[in-house]
């Protein structure tokens, strides 16, 4: 019959060949490979200072008959270190979730047990299917003055460790970042960008629990952000953008009154509207054709190079002029 044996990294392991006597003649194998007699003390197998590479299947065979007398699976690992626990309410006032992980792997199976105590009541934290190390709790009462105490214990064959978090209902409120952030240039306004976004979909009741927002933006070429805090509405027009420069824009959300700011949203890029140079005809929306990106030396007759957003800064004007000059030169040549 087969066993599993868990041992700590660095430990000395003695394996007995089942019920065989100490002085019996046996052969040990590790994952099918014979083990040298030097590791044997009689019929016992001695492994000193084991490391992770020594995990595997160990079998003991009687010397002459080659009968399998004992088999065990050795798993080398470590007892768990103190786990990292985090609790957060991104769906206030519905409830909160807690998630955890181990700072270093143990290399052997671990089991987690989480307990949530609210005053004198023990609450059940329902484990999520995905992600695995996560559970959620529904609030039964709102506006509680009593703290929540969450204890996570991780146990494996070599030991256990636990950590506790104590917090107020309000302290862990942190929404998810705003969604669908969109930034667009404003026609005929070279210094404006129109930004709009939506409440995070996980926030269940923005009517009664409104969110406020924090917008940050900067041109790609600069390091310093500009900030705007908005107490309502899900859109904002930037009016001091540098003309022709590509911007990076992000938004964060927070409950109007409690908790902390969300992480920054996905960054969006946009360049303010720029006026097209007058001597080259352009179409309002030119689809990017492959000719624009081929290595053809002769610029195409339309102003694909000057497409807004394709180039940044005054370089765009220079390229347009160059294209115009080259066209003029060719035109002269063919007269």
């Amino acid at each position: 019959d087969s066993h599993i044996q868990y041992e700590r990294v660095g430990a000395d392991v003695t394996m007995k060949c089942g019920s065989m006597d100490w002085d019996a003649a046996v052969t040990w194998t590790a994952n099918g490979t014979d083990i040298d007699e030097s590791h044997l003390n009689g019929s016992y197998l001695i492994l000193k200072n084991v490391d992770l590479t020594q995990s595997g299947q160990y079998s003991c065979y009687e010397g002459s008959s080659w009968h399998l007398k004992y088999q065990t699976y050795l798993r080398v690992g470590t007892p768990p270190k103190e786990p990292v626990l985090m609790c957060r309410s991104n769906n206030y006032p519905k409830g909160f979730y807690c998630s955890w992980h181990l700072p270093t792997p143990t290399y052997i199976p671990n089991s987690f047990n989480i307990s949530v105590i609210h005053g004198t009541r023990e609450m059940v934290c329902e484990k999520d299917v995905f992600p695995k190390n996560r559970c959620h709790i529904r609030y039964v009462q709102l506006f509680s003055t009593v703290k929540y105490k969450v204890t996570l214990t991780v146990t494996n064959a070599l030991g256990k460790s636990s950590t506790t978090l104590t917090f107020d209902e309000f302290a862990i409120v942190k929404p998810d970042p705003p969604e669908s952030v969109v930034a667009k240039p404003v026609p005929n306004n070279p210094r404006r960008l129109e930004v709009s976004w939506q409440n995070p979909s996980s926030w269940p009741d923005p009517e009664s629990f409104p969110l406020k927002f924090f917008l940050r933006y900067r041109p790609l070429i600069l390091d310093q952000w500009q900030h705007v805090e908005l107490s309502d509405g899900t859109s904002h027009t930037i009016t001091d953008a540098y003309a022709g420069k590509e911007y990076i824009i992000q938004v964060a959300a927070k409950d109007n009154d409690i908790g902390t700011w969300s992480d920054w949203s996905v960054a969006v890029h946009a360049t303010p509207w720029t006026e097209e140079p007058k001597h080259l005809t352009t179409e309002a929306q030119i689809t990017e054709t492959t000719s624009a990106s081929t290595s053809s030396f002769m610029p195409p007759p339309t102003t694909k190079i000057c497409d807004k957003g394709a180039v940044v800064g005054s370089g765009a004007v220079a390229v347009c002029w160059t294209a115009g000059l080259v066209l003029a030169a060719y035109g002269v040549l063919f007269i």
Partner: protein
Amino acid sequence: GDSWGIFTFLCAALCNLPALPALNCTEELGAGQSIQKTYDLTRYLEHQLRTLAGTYLNYLGPPFNEPDFNPPRLARVERVPSATVDLDLWRGLTDNARLAANYRAYSRLLCYLRALDGQAATAELRHRLGHFCSSLQGLVLSIAGVMSSLGYPLPVGPAGPSAPPGTAGAPNDFLKKMDDFWLLKELQTWLWRSAKDFNRLKKKVPPAVVTLRLEARGF
């Protein structure tokens, strides 16, 4: 019009209170604007309370001023009004019930705080508590104003505990300090709750509705 009389009186009273955000009594306060001002007051008080609570808890000394302090709730005869409420119940509150709960709670909390002020040992504490009580009184009156302008009757009954705590209250110093700790905690939680209560009210009561109401009652 009884309601109109009360409203005018309250407005005058509010205007005479020191250290309040300015309330212009000459402009006609629709319920929508009153709710907004009440909301703003709760936010203002919440910020004030942070400083006050910090000072007071330091005065009480450890363990009350430790951030992790999480004592069990002792069953006391006279309990400070708690903001804790069942989630569905809170959602389903009528405007009247919502406002009344706030009015009752702050009336009683004000009374407890005034008792605290009376016993405060240092001049700094007395100053802070006094200032806070004035502002809290303004909040109570502001809520009364909203209720009045919406035509709801003010809750009757004792505005505070029958006997102020501290006289017939805790038998020993430590329990008295616990009472103080919970009073501040409940007050803080109420201010957080009120912000949400008034958010809900804001959305449900546009100013136009109120004007019609007043006109219909022949004012």
